[in-house]
């Protein structure tokens, strides 16, 4: 290893131009995959193909029709929907909505199929046609029908008649995912512009699944244009301050940019579709890549300013850093690769892209960086490295206070760890996007003023062909509907029983006392046939009834709930069904259900991922440190930071969402880097130079203390930038990772030295008094 490192350093510093050309060639080859990259715009990417709740929802949609929709919400400034002007606008919007790409259905106040008795006939027709001819009496009558119709109220019209909506159902063919959803979004946004221009009295808000889909690339783009430049600026400033020179900063800049481009290019080659979580990879890569550069450059400058030649100094720096830089890169990559255990594919992508980026950073910092900076001019003026005196004093303090620090730190760790159970799984998936994303603010308005964004569909099986007309079945469906409507979380229920009741009433001369379910099966089936025959294109019941008329879909719209409350509601509905309508018992399906379950599934699967990372990294450390006992000791500074951070989170916030579930595995590979650098210097002193434990600690502080502190600050800064993401999953993850990294440096600086000194004899495998001698004899 050592021989190889020496040869490497010599070759690179002697063939600088060739090295640069080869590295650029590699970077370009990898980066050219970038042409295949595109942003995903389908919320389903958060679920793997075999996610049981996704499969259940797909099956339900295959049985009826798709639920993907745009809710086009209009709010008249005069707060009156039932005026000639606003109703005329709704007519106009309805007609234009039909031109939405991939639309299969449009529901509005205008085309609501109102039923009326006329003599002995059943008239099924639009609620109104020509709005401009409506008299005040007509308007009052239409308002009365609309806000008393369970199908419409809280869905397409608010109870106070101030806000209305047009719901556009689309069926995306799924042939070109990159363009289909954006086409729909573009169309409805053009419609919004048109409406706001043509009808100045109307404000428009857009929500629905399609708009949510669209928010994913928008959040990614926001992060890309805001977070990456910010992180780059901050990191380069820190590098500049640390290295006190432009050459090193430029070299670092080029290295991290190439690492990002190459990693993203590889993502393109691998066919990864970009999601907001994956889009935090560039920021993560640039943050992590910096550490390699800083270690190599600071050693190089140290030797160069100490009087060595440029190339000679670099060869020496490469020799010293070869193992630790490789090790830290490998462990970081392992930590990220453990994200493949996650149940949500975007985190696989995040892990794999970051892991590739880290390995590219390792390659480029061992090739391009040394070749490039040694070609550039650099000042050889001697400078005392920033902070060295401080760190030496700090080392003295730590050694002096070690008998106090060990119990204090241990108690702190234990006290925080016992707080971990205070965390509970909770997430609000509409709030994945913060207020900088239009979807969020529009959805908040709609949820406050009209209807909900959450829904659960239940496909209720009558058990036999045509069974939906069975009065017993209908009575049970009705009971379940009524139960749903009583629940405080439920805003709206769309159910076939309302249709049966309405038709029955109209078949009896619009007599309100007949607003009830038909009591004979044949009668119900024939009423339904008559009603279905009377419906126009796109307003059929195929979205509520399966082709065999054996099942109906009940759709409950809910207010915005946390996952805990959603799961509680879901369970309550199952319990109620088992108790009261056992024949109908079924599980609900919807994106709401999917997102509510994935958090828990992900935490369980990430426990496995974290365990994998821990075992893999520990084995690597034991091997690298050449000692089982040292390897085991490093478990403490490696595991404690994440455990403490989650304990602290339990005290402060206590809600763990999808984004936080990957933090432990991800940070493990990062925090271990501090331990590796500190331990490798400590062991070099303890074993090779035969220093005592106390002196070895002092040596370790003196050689890598400042660099560790600087890289930790840089990492923290980088992840704090991610914590400003417009995508809450990233923001929470970034914040907690930053916190873990800070805790890690505290544990490494305050506890690890005390442990190394206290357990020196055990670690060295000898009684305390002979430790020194044997350490000299011990092979490195």
């Amino acid at each position, binding site marked *: 290893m050592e021989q190889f490192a020496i040869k490497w350093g010599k070759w690179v510093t002697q063939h600088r131009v060739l090295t640069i050309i080869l590295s650029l060639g590699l970077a370009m080859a990898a980066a050219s995959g970038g042409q295949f990259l595109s942003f995903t715009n389908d919320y389903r990417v958060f679920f793997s193909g075999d996610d049981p709740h996704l499969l259940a929802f797909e099956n339900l949609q295959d049985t009826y029709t798709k639920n993907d929709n745009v809710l086009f919400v209009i709010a008249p400034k005069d707060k009156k929907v039932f005026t000639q002007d606003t109703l005329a606008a709704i007519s106009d919007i309805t007609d234009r909505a039909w031109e939405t790409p991939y639309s299969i259905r449009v529901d509005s106040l205008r085309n609501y199929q109102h039923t009326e008795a006329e003599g002995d006939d*059943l008239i*099924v027709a639009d609620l109104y046609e020509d709005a401009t001819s409506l008299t005040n009496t007509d308007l009052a009558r239409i308002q009365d029908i609309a806000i008393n119709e369970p199908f419409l109220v809280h869905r397409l019209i608010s109870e106070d008649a101030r806000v209305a909506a047009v719901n556009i159902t689309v069926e995306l063919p799924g042939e070109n995912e990159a363009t289909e959803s954006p086409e729909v979004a573009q169309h409805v946004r053009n419609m919004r512009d048109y409406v706001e221009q043509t009808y100045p009295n109307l404000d428009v808000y857009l929500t629905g699944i399609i708009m949510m889909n669209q928010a994913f690339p928008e959040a990614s783009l926001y992060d890309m244009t805001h977070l990456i430049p910010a992180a780059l600026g901050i990191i380069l400033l820190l590098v500049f301050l640390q290295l006190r020179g432009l050459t090193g900063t430029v070299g670092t800049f080029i290295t991290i940019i190439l690492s990002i481009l190459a990693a993203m290019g590889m993502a393109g080659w691998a066919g990864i579709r970009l999601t907001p979580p994956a889009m935090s990879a560039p920021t993560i890569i640039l943050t992590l890549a910096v550490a390699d550069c800083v270690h190599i450059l600071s050693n190089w400058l140290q030797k160069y300013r100490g009087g060595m030649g440029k190339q000679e100094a670099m060869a020496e720096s490469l020799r010293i850093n070869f193992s630790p830089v490789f090790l830290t890169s490998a462990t970081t990559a392992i930590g990220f690769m453990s994200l493949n255990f996650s149940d949500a594919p975007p985190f696989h992508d995040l892990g794999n892209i970051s892991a590739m980026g880290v390995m590219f950073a390792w390659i480029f910092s061992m090739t391009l960086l040394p070749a490039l900076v040694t070609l550039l001019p650099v000042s050889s003026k001697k400078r005392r490295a920033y902070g060295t005196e401080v760190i030496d004093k700090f080392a003295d303090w730590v050694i002096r206070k070690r008998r106090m620090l060990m119990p204090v730190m241990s108690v702190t760790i234990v006290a925080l760890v016992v707080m971990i159970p205070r965390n509970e799984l909770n997430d609000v998936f509409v709030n994945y996007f913060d207020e900088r994303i239009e979807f969020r603010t529009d959805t908040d308005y709609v949820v406050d003023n009209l209807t909900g964004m959450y829904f659960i569909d239940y496909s209720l099986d009558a058990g036999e062909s045509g069974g939906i007309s069975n009065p017993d079945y209908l009575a049970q469906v009705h009971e379940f509907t009524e139960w749903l409507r009583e629940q405080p979380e439920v805003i709206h229920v769309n159910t076939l029983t309302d249709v049966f009741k309405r038709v029955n009433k109209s078949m009896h001369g619009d007599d309100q006392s007949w607003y009830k379910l038909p009591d004979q*099966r044949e009668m119900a*089936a*024939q009423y339904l046939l008559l009603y279905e*025959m009377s419906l126009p294109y796109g307003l*059929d019941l195929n979205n509520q009834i*399966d*082709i*065999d008329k054996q099942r109906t879909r009940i759709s409950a719209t809910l207010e915005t709930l946390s996952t805990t409350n959603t799961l509680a509601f879901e369970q309550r509905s199952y319990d109620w069904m088992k108790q009261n309508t056992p024949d109908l018992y079924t599980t609900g399906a919807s994106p709401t259900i999917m997102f509510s379950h994935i958090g828990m599934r992900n935490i369980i699967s990430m426990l496995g991922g974290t365990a994998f990372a821990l075992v893999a990294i520990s084995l690597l450390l034991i091997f690298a440190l050449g000692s089982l006992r040292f390897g085991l000791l490093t478990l403490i500074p490696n595991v404690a930071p994440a455990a403490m951070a989650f304990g602290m989170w339990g005290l402060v916030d206590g809600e763990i969402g999808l984004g936080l579930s990957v933090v432990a595995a991800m940070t493990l590979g990062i925090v271990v880097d501090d331990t590796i650098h500190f331990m490798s210097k400590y062991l070099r002193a303890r074993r090779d130079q035969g220093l005592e434990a106390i002196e070895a600690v002092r040596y370790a502080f003196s050689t890598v203390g400042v660099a560790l502190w600087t890289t930790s600050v840089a990492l923290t800064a980088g992840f704090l930038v991610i914590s400003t993401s417009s995508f809450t999953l990233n923001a929470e993850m970034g914040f907690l990772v930053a916190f873990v990294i800070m805790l890690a440096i505290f544990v490494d600086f305050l506890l690890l030295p005390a442990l190394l000194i206290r357990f020196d004899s055990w670690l060295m495998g000898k009684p305390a008094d002979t430790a020194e001698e044997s350490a000299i004899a011990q092979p490195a």
Partner: protein
Amino acid sequence: MQTFKTVFITVLIAATPVDFLIAQTPEERGLEISLAADQRDSGWKHQTSEMEMILRNRAGKESRRKITNRQLEVNGDGDKTLSLFHEPKDVEGTAMLTFSHGLEPDDQWLYLPSIKRVKRISSKNKSGPFMGSEFAFEDLSSQEVEKYKYKFLREEACGEFECFVIERIPQYENSGYTKQIAWIDKAEYRNIKVEYYDRKDALLKTLELSGYNEYSGGFWRADQFEMTNHQTGKSTTLLWQKYDFESDLDENSFNQNALKRLR
């Protein structure tokens, strides 16, 4: 009317070579072909048939319906149709009477045996699905020439046939379609395939007709209609059998009273 059509067609066919010289427009050619097709399918007077409908959803589930049809050819107006439902069982005995018209909305009545009453169906909505299938009323009702504006597009092979390809734009109100593209075989002027385009001018459905048999009098009828909805992935097959042109039917078999008598 019938006589007029015959004369008109004869003149058109006789004038064909001249037509080429005076450069017939695609619209004229489209209309000419449609008139010829209508002409060839005129004079059958009345027919009965049995139809089985097989509905399929995207999940691959199937559901069946059975209907007996009786049709009366009406000169100068759309045909009259009486459909009697046998399956599903819940609607057995339900019967539907349709007087189709050209541009005017059709008249439709439904007899519901459970309440022993005849109900008129709001007639404007003929674009909705027929019994939950992928067929709309307007796809199944009689195809009068004046219902569409035509445009000849091209000639091309369609399966085993050589076809005219004609665009049809509905002229009646409340159609679900902006246009249809029909493939009509050049030999016998039969519909081989029809594509339906929705309000945003996107391909919605394709109808394919197959198993044509020639019945006495030279009338061609297909055994199988296959309608595929490209947007929802659902499809419906119609299987026709027992075409009969000899049955004893007249005007009196097609009125509201006849609805109740049907069994």
